[in-house]
């Protein structure tokens, strides 16, 4: 499998060189630098030279490179590199050149632990943090034989993600439903593509080894069981554990509005066999924060914002913009940090803009006008009018008109209409627990062509 992991900065200096196999030689660092970093022609993330394959990803200002010699599993290699990035972020906050330089000992230590002979081992952040720590002092735990047998038990056990002796005075679980809504709208205003990538993040502060069951207003699930009216409330505390769902009234689901999930992916704690058989999401959660599931929905996507841009090129010296944006959600809600990026031609010299709300500013380095609205209440509509004056160019090249893009976050709203129906916690000691749900919709790639 992997012969080595290399980390470079943008200049091509080798920051980390960890060979896992005999065939990964220091010379390979030079080869990668010459062939990839200083070669602007390279367009693919995979490069095979002779029998050596370099697979790289770029994160912040560093290159993470995996060297393989055989017909390796490419998906695994990249996924592993991204996992390394994730680990780096959770250890150092930001995984960049500085972090690598300041923590190179720790990184070597981590690499030693997560790869053995080039085969990925346990990469769970929480488990690793128990015995590989940033402060040298804390590794005293690992020096204690009894503690470390416990750690190793966890690092390899069937529940590799959870310690056995978790205790909380107050048992709480927070569920965040976060949706990234993607939109691609054509210049004529037809929706080319609208879908939702959602994730459900859970913060579990539960004692012991709790077994959780989690229910959504997923159509397939609702078709299968004969559940009663779900606790359709958008927020607040859900029913306590042992909250038996009413049997019988099977036809009420239409009223509750069910959602078709195109596909879902689960954290490794979820029993996939169980989900496959009867769509029940059942799991023993890791302690603390983790991503329980990801899902995709493509039907009945509620678009929170409608954007109507009019862009006119007047001769070769001027472009006129008129962009109207309307909030398409209940007036009780409001979106925050709404940012609209309106592309301008590369040869823009100067812009003037007027807005009915928020502030607009021209950013020459990104070739766009950025219009920011801090708070956008439901139902309202705002307009920007702008004019870009262009310098004349000898070599007139057509402007590619990149799409206009949006950023926002909107609380208590899900584009897909997904709701959490219940979260039940079963534990030996039968304690009662409090659960909280929060919903948020953000812009994924929300693009409007014009």
């Amino acid at each position, binding site marked *: 499998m992997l012969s080595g992991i290399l980390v470079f900065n943008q200049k091509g200096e*080798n920051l980390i*060189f960890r*060979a896992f196999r005999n*065939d990964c030689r*220091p*010379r390979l*660092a030079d*080869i990668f630098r010459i062939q990839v970093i200083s070669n602007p022609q390279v*367009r*693919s*993330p*995979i490069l*095979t030279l*002779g*029998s*050596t*394959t370099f*697979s790289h*990803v770029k994160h912040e200002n560093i290159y993470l490179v995996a060297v393989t*010699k*055989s017909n390796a*599993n490419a*998906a695994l290699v*990249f*996924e*592993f590199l*991204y996992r390394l990035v994730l680990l780096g972020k959770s250890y150092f906050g930001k995984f960049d050149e500085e972090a690598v330089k300041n923590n*190179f*000992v720790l990184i*070597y230590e981590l690499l*030693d632990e997560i790869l*053995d002979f080039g085969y*990925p*081992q*346990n990469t769970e952040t929480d488990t690793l943090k128990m015995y590989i720590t940033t402060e040298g002092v804390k590794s005293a735990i*690992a020096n*204690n*034989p009894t503690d*470390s047998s416990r750690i*190793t038990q966890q*690092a*390899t056990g*069937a529940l*590799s993600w959870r310690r056995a002796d978790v205790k909380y005075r107050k048992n709480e679980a927070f569920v965040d439903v976060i949706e990234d809504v993607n939109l691609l709208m054509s210049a004529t205003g037809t929706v*080319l*593509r609208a*879908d939702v990538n959602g994730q459900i993040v859970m913060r579990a502060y539960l004692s012991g080894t709790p077994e959780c069951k989690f229910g959504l207003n997923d159509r397939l699930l609702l078709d299968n069981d004969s559940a009663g009216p779900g606790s359709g409330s958008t927020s607040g505390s859900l029913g306590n554990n042992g909250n038996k769902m009413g049997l019988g009234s099977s036809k009420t689901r239409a009223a509750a509005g069910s959602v078709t999930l*195109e*596909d879902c*992916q689960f*954290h*490794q704690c979820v029993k996939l*066999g169980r*989900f496959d058989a009867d769509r029940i999401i059942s799991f023993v959660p890791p302690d603390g924060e983790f991503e329980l599931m*990801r899902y*995709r929905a493509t039907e009945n996507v509620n678009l929170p914002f409608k954007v109507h841009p009019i862009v006119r090129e007047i001769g070769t010296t001027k472009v006129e913009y008129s962009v109207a944006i309307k909030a398409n959600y209940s007036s009780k809600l409001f979106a925050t940090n709404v940012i609209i990026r309106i592309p301008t031609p590369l040869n823009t010299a100067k812009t003037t803009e007027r807005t009915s709300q928020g502030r607009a500013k021209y950013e020459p380095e990104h070739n766009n006008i950025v219009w920011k609205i801090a708070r956008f209440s439901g139902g309202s509509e705002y307009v920007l009018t702008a004019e870009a004056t262009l310098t004349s160019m000898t070599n007139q090249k057509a402007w*590619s*008109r990149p799409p206009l893009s949006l950023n926002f976050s909107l609380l208590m709203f899900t584009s897909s209409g997904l709701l959490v129906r219940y979260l039940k916690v079963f534990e030996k000691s039968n304690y009662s627990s409090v659960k909280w749900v929060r919903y948020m919709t953000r812009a994924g790639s929300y*693009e409007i*062509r014009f």
Partner: protein
Amino acid sequence: MAMNRIRGAFAVPRKGETFELRAGLVSQYAYERKEAIQKTIMAMTLGKDVSALFPDVLKNIATTDLEQKKLVYLYLMNYAKSHPDLCILAVNTFVQDSEDPNPLIRALAIRTMGCIRVDKMIDYMEEPLRKTLRDESPYVRKTAAICVAKLFDLSPAMCLENGFLEMLQEMIGDPNPMVVANSVTALSEIHHAAPETQALQVTPNTLRKLLMALNECTEWGRVTILTTLSEYRTSAVNEAEQICERVAPQFQHANPSVVLAAVKVVFLHMKLVNAELSSNYLKKMAPPLVTLVSSAPEVQYVALRNIDLLLQKQPDILNKELRVFFCKYNDPPYVKFQKLEIMVRIANDRNFDQLLAELKEYALEVDMDFVRRAVKAIGQVAIKIESACEKCVNTLLDLINTKVNYVVQEAIVVIKDIFRKYPGYEGIIPTLCKCIDELDEPNARAALIWIVGEYAEKISNAGDILAGFVEGFNEEFSQTQLQILTAVVKLFLKRPDKAQGLVQKVLQSATAENDNPDVRDRAYVYWRLLSNTSDTSAARNIVLSKKPPIVTTIHSLPPALLEQLLTELSTLASVYHKPPEQFVGQGRFGADAVQKAAIEEQLQNARDNPLAAAAAAAVSGTAAPQQQNNVENLLDIDFDGTAPASAHKEPNGSMSGLEGLAGTPVRVESPAVGAPAPAPTGSNNLDDLLGVFGDNGAASSASASAPPSGGAGADLLNGFGGLDLSGGISSPPPAGASQPKKTNEDILSLF
């Protein structure tokens, strides 16, 4: 030279970084020592040679500080080879550590021991490994399992003698899923390195254990187990059903590599289960595949390449998912290109409207390469779906009207293909002819000329257009010249009155003034045909014969290759769409950069001191374990070739036969004969082949009195050319080392 370097390393410098580090390493304060170790590792990373500090670092091995221990171990792994004799000092600590009460330390010790590739260390590994394989802590067991693979890599014989393989095979039944996964990993590695060991045999019993462990182990363990399952071939229907049933839930895993591995298993075993069930599985795998398209770009790229393969086998699994493959503005180009190909593959008569609108959008972007591909895709859709053709042609005409040079050129090439499938669009020819002056690429010019020739009877000014081209005939690229020739002849056959002079002229310049044999030959053929008076319709029958319509312009892999690649899903082979043999040697024994470096160094040595080098080459040829070294030895031959006769002095070991041949020309041939046939371990490597061929080519052509061309061995063909000669030539081998060395560099630069 290598000797000098080692000697230099032993001399103690009195100042500089190494000196300071050394001072720190032997400091009386623990924190200073630790800091010095960290600095040493830092220097090592930066590529500085700190091997001289080996003894001093080694002194710090006995410590209770786990972090420091890890650093020392890391240093050891890197430099053990430079001081093999000193490693023995570390052995004791390792053995002790492997019995430490702390499982982390036990695991660390056994993990590191396997990475210290020194013969002496191997001798001491047996006992600790045996113990740790039976350790009570699963963490230690799983580490020891991988260590068996490391040991096998170092010394297969020892691994087999001590029964470690059997122990590993037992460990598939371990209660801990991670131990199971790592045992499978180790066994599969050994199995692939040396198939004759039969290390990993999936029996119904192990199959059951694997399926059990699958749901419980870590994501990476799942990939391992799934990969093993995909390599398992069963003929029993119920077994295949069982595998599919247990693996399908993994489609829902969060890790894309698990999803792809699961898709691979189900896809391969699905053939056996009944049709209804397998179409069910196909339906089930579509959504997860689509989800992969929203992962990180690099993972997406791998997924897209794999989806491309799956679509070639099962064209309709993603019928309804066209929109997911729409390119985002900021997708990296490699993702965009792949998405285009997939969109064309899933285009059908229901979704082509949407697709065409999207492709037109792309064709108006600025990235030239992407735009061209988008235009090409429009043509592919037209040819694939008959009902879409009219819309496609209209879209192409719209694009031609944009007058963007490269769009127009690509559009013309595409329209030519459309004409070849669907006659009846002659109406647009005038529009095409208008942009004749803008075409500067040979492909586009050739396409337009072909159209003019094909429809010569319908284009009133065809004669004038072609006359213009004939005028500048000699300045054209040869592919355009060929088209001009054909078009003029077609025109002449269709309207003899208009083209009498033209045809004379073009045949004249093609035969008399042209250097390209293809063009000349074609011109002669036409000339003969046209001057054939006995059968006047012969030329007409041949030149204007009905052409078979083209079926598709979408690139597809040949079925046999496709089948092979489907068994390689999610590997590099599936990304390159090439069988693994084409881009990678069979793993560890191949000649990699190391060996190339070694070759260069040895050649350098040979030049300095031929006698010593020959001896060294001979020793390295005989001392290394025979099993892995067939190929290396083939390469080594070149070294002793540079140092005549002296190699005869050490005729011991199996390779001495070949070395003994060094003085005769036959030896030039021997590697060439040996290399293409798989070496006993199957460890021949593309690189090696090239290297061997190149070297031989150079050697033989240098020795031959009449080398086939100037730059000997500069390319493969020359290499082969040289080979052909080598059999028959009986001149002595070359004496100068410079020639083979140059070849090596050439070969390297090829990659």
